[in-house]
């Protein structure tokens, strides 16, 4: 691949935002048909870089060249016209519209619906992305939604396809199918810029990799010949600490779910179906699964945001299904939802007020309805100190914190309240590697001290690292939990629902 002329060459790209240099002197080149990985932690500048290629952001300095000619897209439309396609991490699809309608909305000159549907069928056939153009997007799985986005790109016949963390919503089997599709595209000469922080994936898929840290290129490597650990350390810049845990025997049953079923509060949510599981003192139950298979709903059913029928949820032998969040919290059930801004924390309120949000009962901040703000401030300060939250002080608004720091605050707020049962959803999402390690360590320490934990995550490596038992959510059902030790990726994938009826590309 090295002797071919680059399709896209970036040299010396720099982009600064007020207070932070997102990209500094970044250079890389991609040849036609090359699968190039862009590797880095959250905040390393990956997104800014691809936004410049896609015409969403203009570089302060530096040049881009496409096929040897200067390339400076002023807007995404120009980038698309030049043959750049991008699949975003977060889908921009309308739930209530059909696949074909969604694709038509994203096209410059959409053909007639009938013709477009035929095109969609053709492309999905060639690349092994089975997808009926008439289905309503709201009914699709995350993997299928991603295919809508990919097909939308492929219809424009891109010469460079940018994929931003495409596998975070897929089961291992679905990842394999996606990779076959990408390999086929690459064999046809499409260059692929693949953004991820999952190292094993990159090793199996990518021809070359550029590693970013704090906006700078800190290394280039051939992933197949570099160990995952070496790449991780280049990415983080330090030697990684693996969380440690002591062996232990689980204690009494803390949480007992019997045939828990609950409707989803949102229209296109996933109802919970017949979930039965027990969690014991000192045990961590890891729950995997593709996003949108009932994770949010399960957390809501445990936190008390949605109530469930009698006998479905027992906590320390007491039926709590009909209790709301406040009494459950007083009893020792604490939760940390996935969405930090707007759900776990109120964005425009101060950290002190956000500490009050869930700390009122257990921290004794509420005396007969009157709130003790000085004590809430002390509690917030304690969270900030113990969990190394980077902020000028507890008076700052939650939204002024970076995602990772707010995550540390949210997790710390619950951990410090000595829960008997802690349920967390995506505890390290968007957190840098060293902070993620310290959050995992805090969860392990809690289990050590006898707390029962349910950790819901889409990061299988994380779940394997800290769980005693593992189960997966699929279409609102929970698989039979199994001891996490010795589980293979294939077994996990099958628990997560296998390939959700998807097929491999007909190569």
């Amino acid at each position, binding site marked *: 691949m090295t002797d071919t002329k680059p399709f896209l060459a970036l040299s010396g790209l720099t982009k600064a935002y007020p207070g932070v240099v997102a990209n500094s002197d970044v250079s890389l080149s991609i040849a036609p048909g090359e699968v190039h990985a862009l590797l880095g932690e959250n905040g390393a500048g990956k997104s800014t870089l691809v936004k410049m290629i896609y015409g969403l952001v*203009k570089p302060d300095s530096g040049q881009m060249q496409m096929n040897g000619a200067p390339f400076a897209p002023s807007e995404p439309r120009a980038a698309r016209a030049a043959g750049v396609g991008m699949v975003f991490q977060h889908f921009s699809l309308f739930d209530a519209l059909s696949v074909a309608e969604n694709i038509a909305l994203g096209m410059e000159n959409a053909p007639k619906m009938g013709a477009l549907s035929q095109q969609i069928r053709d492309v999905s056939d060639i690349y092994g992305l089975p997808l009926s153009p008439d289905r309503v997007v709201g009914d699709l799985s995350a993997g299928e939604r991603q295919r809508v986005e990919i097909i939308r790109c492929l219809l424009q016949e891109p010469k460079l396809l940018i994929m931003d963390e495409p596998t975070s919503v897929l089961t291992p089997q679905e990842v394999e199918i996606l990779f076959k599709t990408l390999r086929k595209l690459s064999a046809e000469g499409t260059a692929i810029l693949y953004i991820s922080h999952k190292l094993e994936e990159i090793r199996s898929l990518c021809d070359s990799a550029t590693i970013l840290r704090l906006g700078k290129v800190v290394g280039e490597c051939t992933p197949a010949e570099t160990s995952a650990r070496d790449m991780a350390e280049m990415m983080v810049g330090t030697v990684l600490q693996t969380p440690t845990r002591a062996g232990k025997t689980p204690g009494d049953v803390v949480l007992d779910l019997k045939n828990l079923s609950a409707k989803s509060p949102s229209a296109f949510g996933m109802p919970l179906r017949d979930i039965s599981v027990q969690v014991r003192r000192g045990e961590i139950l890891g729950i995997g699964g593709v996003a949108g298979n009932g994770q949010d709903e399960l957390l809501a059913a445990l936190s008390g945001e949605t109530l469930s029928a009698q006998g479905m949820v027992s906590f320390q032998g007491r039926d709590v299904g009909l209790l709301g969040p406040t009494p459950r919290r007083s009893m020792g059930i604490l939760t940390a939802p996935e969405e930090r801004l707007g759900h776990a924390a109120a964005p425009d309120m101060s950290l002190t007020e956000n500490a009050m949000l869930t700390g*009122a009962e257990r921290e004794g901040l509420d005396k007969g309805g009157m709130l003790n703000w000085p004590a809430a401030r002390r509690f917030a300060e304690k969270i900030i100190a113990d969990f190394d939250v980077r902020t000028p002080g507890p008076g700052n608004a939650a939204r002024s914190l970076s995602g990772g720091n707010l995550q540390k605050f949210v997790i710390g707020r619950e951990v410090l309240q000595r829960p008997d049962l802690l349920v967390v959803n995506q505890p390290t999402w968007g957190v840098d590697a060293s902070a993620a390690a310290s959050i995992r360590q805090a969860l392990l320490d809690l289990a050590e001290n006898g707390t029962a934990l349910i950790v819901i995550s889409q990061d299988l490596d994380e779940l394997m690292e800290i769980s005693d038992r593992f189960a997966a959510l699929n279409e609102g059902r929970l698989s039979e939990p199994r001891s996490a030790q010795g589980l293979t990726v294939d077994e996990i994938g099958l628990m997560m629902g296998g390939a959700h009826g998807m097929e491999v590309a007909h190569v």
Partner: protein
Amino acid sequence: MIRLEKRPEPSRAVSLATPVLAVLATMFFGGLLFMILGKPPIQSILTIFWEPLFGEFAFYYRPQLLIKGAPLVLIAIGLSLGFKAGIWNIGAEGQYIMGALFGAGLGLAFYPLDAWYIFPLMVLAGAFGGWLWAMIPAFLKVRFGTNEILVSLMLVYVAEQFLASMSLGLLKNPEGFGFPGSRNLQQYDAAFNAELIEGSGMHWGVVAALIAVIFAYVLLTKHRLGFAIRVTGEAPRAAKFSGVNPMRLILFCMGMSGLLAGLAGMFEVAGPAGQVTIDFNVGYGFTAIIVAFLGRLHPIGILLAGGLMALTYIGGDIAQSNLGLPAAAIQVFQGMLLFFLLALDMFTNYRLRFGRSAEAV
């Protein structure tokens, strides 16, 4: 090129400055409006803002300030609780009417009995009437998910019809020579909401408004319920997560705003107005919406805004009679105040940036 940039945090300084800037902008553009209407702009503005406070007849107008300000503050305090939580009671005018009818109705039912307990009972009845009227949209919202803005607003017109029917029928003064309207409560001592100090304008409604301000202040800053209101307004999902029951909050906020509006109506009918008439209501319930926002939904702010609004009412009246300004012009003037306030509000969360954008948008 000018563009807006989101501030990392809401600016406190701007938040405090916007009401003042909005008043100044209203004075300027209001003056412009008056000029176009062929009236002397500076004199008009002075008439509205200066005359009632320090003019020749200020001794007459100053008590009026309390009389007009009290219902505005009382209603606006109630509305602000709901507005903070994203619950939009637009029908305070109707609740004000119902409070007046319940209060006056109870008082008149006792006529001509002279007993100390009549006035306190009227206060309770007035509060109950307003509460009841607000419970209709609240209940419909909680039970069937209806829109409280529409329902509460439409109930204003129902209340107005009810008021007309009452003043022509059940509550009509039997000794009124057939004219519509009830007996005058000012002439019924046991039911009269008299001035506490002669000539000061200070009546029980003013006291109630001040108590409401203090109550709301303590509720919002110190109490769990006030915190629940604020969180619900800021982030409804976070509020639910923290344990707030949104249904109960709707019932509380709607009920509280109805109750205070009902009280305002009752104090008005038993005091300054004196009798139930077809045109008893003069729009306090709607103006209070402006007062609530002008006061930044903050109790102290509402107290000041209520005073300011009362000032434009009284000043507007003077300008109408002395300078011949049309009543509509005064209403436009008051509307401008809200308009500028909401527009300037933007700068609490955003700031202006001049020069070319760094990013292609």
